[in-house]
């Protein structure tokens, strides 16, 4: 990217226009526009940091490609922010009670951050316990059952039936039979992510290439090594797709359960403040959940790429 391209582009133009109009026009009372400008500036900084990382390499390189994508994304965000700010803080086109200004949401996000984090920790404890339990049981069980022809034939119809039940319907009953809300949520997340992980592991074992298994038998692989060093790695692609489905189920189940019976957590946060019609905080909660899920998914994809680096 040339210096000219770095300076004169639509993202920079949008940022300058946003700032100029923002300071030129008066805002409605209580819309805390400074925080909206701060947010825009943060996005813009992200773009500039990307630009700085790709030094004038004449364009075409991977770095300048990434910078271009970042520029496009930041441009889109600025546009949306601009529309939101204009419709609320500047021209009050929308009902202020239902549609807070972006500055209010950004300010609350910062002010309420300690509460958000404590909610996150409470949620992650439940999610982590249930999900890890599901992986630790679903994968070994799937490997053993998938490797044993007779067990596989029994397990197949059973999993088809039980795995087809939407796990969300377990929530009321689990809350009724289990002593604490925590144990009930862990149980529901476990059930919800166990089936996709188990079923995918099972089918993955079945799909491991016969020729690889023959090759393993030809070098007299021990039964333990057959499962852990041949079948397990051969099944990892299926396990990872099951684990991904399980993870997204977990988020849905976790937040649903928290909305029903929790006294803390990310889902509870949204439900609690919407009961008080505190919609700015509801939006804060929704945005925060979005960020958390993106971060977790990002690291999950990294892990998947590492585990499948041989492909």
């Amino acid at each position, binding site marked *: 990217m040339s210096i000219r391209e770095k300076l004169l582009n639509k993202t920079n133009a949008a940022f300058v226009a946003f700032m100029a109009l923002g300071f030129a026009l008066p805002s409605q009372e209580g819309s805390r526009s400074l925080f909206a400008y701060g947010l825009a500036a943060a996005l813009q900084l992200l773009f500039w940091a990307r630009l700085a990382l790709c030094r004038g390499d004449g364009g075409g390189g991977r770095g300048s490609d990434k910078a271009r994508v970042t520029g496009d994304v930041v441009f889109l965000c600025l546009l949306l922010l601009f529309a939101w700010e204009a419709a609320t803080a500047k021209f009050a086109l929308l009902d202020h009670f239902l549609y807070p200004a972006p500055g209010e949401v950004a300010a609350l996000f910062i002010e309420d951050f300690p509460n958000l984090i404590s909610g996150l920790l409470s949620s992650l404890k439940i999610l982590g316990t249930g999900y890890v339990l599901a992986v630790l049981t679903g994968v070994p069980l799937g490997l053993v059952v998938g490797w044993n022809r007779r067990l596989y034939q029994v397990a197949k119809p059973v999993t088809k039936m039980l795995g087809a039940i939407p796990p969300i319907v377990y929530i009321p009953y689990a809350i009724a039979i289990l002593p604490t809300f925590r144990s009930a949520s862990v149980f529901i997340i476990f059930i919800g992510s166990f089936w996709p992980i188990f079923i995918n592991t099972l089918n993955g074992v079945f799909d491991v*290439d016969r*020729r*690889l298994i*023959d*090759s*393993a*038998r*030809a*070098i*007299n*692989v*021990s039964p333990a*090594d057959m499962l852990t*060093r*041949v079948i397990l*790695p*051969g099944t*990892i692609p299926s396990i990872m797709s099951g684990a991904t489905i399980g993870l997204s189920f977990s988020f849905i189940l976790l937040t649903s359960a928290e909305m029903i019976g929790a006294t803390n957590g990310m889902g509870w946060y949204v439900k609690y403040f919407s009961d008080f019609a505190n919609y700015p905080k509801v939006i804060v909660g929704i945005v925060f959940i979005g960020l958390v899920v993106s971060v977790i998914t990002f690291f999950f994809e990294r892990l998947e790429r590492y585990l499948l*680096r*041989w*492909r």
Partner: protein
Amino acid sequence: MAKIDINDVYLEYDSGSGRQAALDGVSFSVGEGEFVSVIGSSGCGKSTLLGLLAGLMPPSGGEILIDGDRVTGTGKDRSVVFQHYSLFPWMSARGNIVFALKQQGRNGCKPSALREKADRYLGLVGLADAARKFPRELSGGMQQRVAIARALALDSPMLLMDEPFGAIDAKNRAGLQELLLDLWDCGDGRKTVVFVTHDIDEAIFLSDKIVVMSSGPGRVKEEIPVPFPRPREREGIVRTAAYAALRNRIVLLFYDDLAKAIGGEEVVI
């Protein structure tokens, strides 16, 4: 006593519409240190026969004896190279060899000793630099070299090869054949090799004896000794009259089979 004795082996499988014979009355023997090729058109059961020799499945009738003992399963006295998927894609070239060595009950050996051995054999096949690469990062020919290095590193007295160069282009294939002969011929005592192929020139160049099979069901049609002295030079033998005669004889055996198939009721053109 021969190293390998195949006595009247019969094998049938479920074809969906009843039992079908894949091999019928197959008998031949392989001497100690002998290089024998099994050749035939596709579907003649030659790969199946190799699977039986490897012990991957039992024959439905007859028996296979190694050193006079009946084969009942896979064994450490045999190593196998397949056409595809000999190597585990999630292990590096070195990892594949070390893993195989470990299975041989060399767990007692230090890991560093196993790694050293693996690297030595990778060096033998000219792939010292590829030790840390995954099979995906290697060409088909290089993968087969790793598979051969693994089979040789196991140092078992018998080597079973199922069309190992079937998917390799002609030029690389010639190189691999020479490499195989070199490695087979060096060291103390030749290994006993059973080599399945559908390439007539490959069979002649490599073997002491060629077993020609016919299909439907697979039977041994003829056993043909290959008289050329070793070490062999490809250019030296292919121009001789003996080579042409031998090649013609095998080609005719192939055609014979083909003519029968076309002359029958299953003419599909």
